[in-house]
């Protein structure tokens, strides 16, 4: 890691968007588990996720980025599928 003399002036970030390299998933106590067969692909989870941790590939939700998901569970509460396509599980199981 850089010493104080090597850092850009004033705490600015020059490689903008480097939050993706800042791993915050370790803060999680519960994790959302994606149940693909129950998902209706409404994208509600994607819209409500505060950490942009819902992974979308080829216009479909395929799971969660556990490097940045903090396990808040908003996605599981807001999931519109019946039965729900997201279940919260205790982190120590994984």
């Amino acid at each position, binding site marked *: 890691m850089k*010493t104080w003399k090597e850092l850009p002036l004033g705490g600015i970030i020059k490689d903008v968007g480097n939050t993706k390299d800042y791993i915050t998933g370790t803060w999680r106590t519960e994790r959302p588990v994606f149940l693909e067969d129950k998902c209706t692909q409404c994208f509600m989870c994607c819209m409500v996720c505060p950490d942009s941790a819902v992974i979308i590939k080829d216009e479909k939700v395929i799971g969660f980025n556990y490097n940045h998901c903090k396990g808040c569970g908003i996605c599981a509460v807001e999931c519109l599928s019946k039965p729900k396509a997201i279940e919260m599980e205790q982190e120590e199981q994984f």
Partner: protein
Amino acid sequence: MSKRVVMTGNETVAEAVRQINPDVVAAYPITPSTAVVEYISQYVADGLIDTEFVTAESEHSALSACIGAAAGGGRVMNATSAQGLALMWEMLYIASAMRLPMILAVVNRALSGPINIHGDHSDTMGARDCGWIQLYSENCQEVYDNMLQAVRISEHIDVRTPVIVALDGFITSHAIDTLETERDEDVKRFIGDYITLNSILDTKNVVTYGAIDFQDYYFEHKRQQLEGLHKSAEIIKSVGEEFGRTFGREYGFFEGYKLDDAEYAIVAMNSAAGTIKTVIDDLREEGVKAGLLKLRVFRPFPAAEIAEALKTMKVVAILDRTSTAGAQGGPLFSEIRSALYSESSRPGIVNYIYGLGGKDLTPEHIRYVYDTLRRIDRTGKIDRLVDYLNLREEGGQD
């Protein structure tokens, strides 16, 4: 080619701002600095300057707008006093941590409570740890000269730190004084063009300001921030010398008035220095070796230079125009007493709190201080380490 003019302190600040012609002034008026903002808005309305004048809804917002404008790469100025500075508090730290150059003229006024609009230094002394450079001004001439030098100091690539230029409320801000101003083109040449660095409006070199900074980088960034203040000392000195070569009025960290051969010295800041000089002249005629150290630069604190200047004195009185509740004395006293600690021979030292809420400081009070210093020298005894001038109390000097 300078011009001799008469102006109030507030008008002087505004005149400097007119000549500097900053990109943005975001301000919220407050007594006793209101006229600064009024003059600037008038200059904008009259087309004398092309400054973007932002009327904010509070001082917190005013400084926030200044921070945004400075991050956007503009030359930015602002003015306030007392409660206004207090409301800016959290943004003061953010401006300095982001290493954004800007100038804030603070017309010193007592912080409430009790509510009061008159001069003392509780506002800027309270802000002494905010990471801003602080320049103090005895009179309108020094206000004008400090404003111009502040631009160069603040914007220097090794400094990139905001500057407060302080002047006493009413005594300096409202009284009419004579001073020399310089021609617009000479001022323009002295301050130079603003060099934009890391602008948030530069879409080709995108940067983020104000990102979260935890255990991994916060400490390193704070250490780096201190370096701007440390390095500003030599820049303040070189800019002060260049100002002297250019306009004939040289500046350093402080002014010594009959200090070199003095035995009894007072240390003070801002307008009180004028009164003290008058008393020194009288005392010198009576054969008393009295002197003054008038501090101009409080942040960064020039500890070594002050210790060097004071170490040969017999007894020294530090005048603080603020009361630092629960401390060993005023902030100036604590700093100077600490600065002298490493000297092998040290003068006796006492602290006087004076002028709170605009309370008068007259020649009689100054004379009382010098008399006390001589008595301490004679008896070797300090009765009161921290005392109060012109305070009604039993056993006081009145």
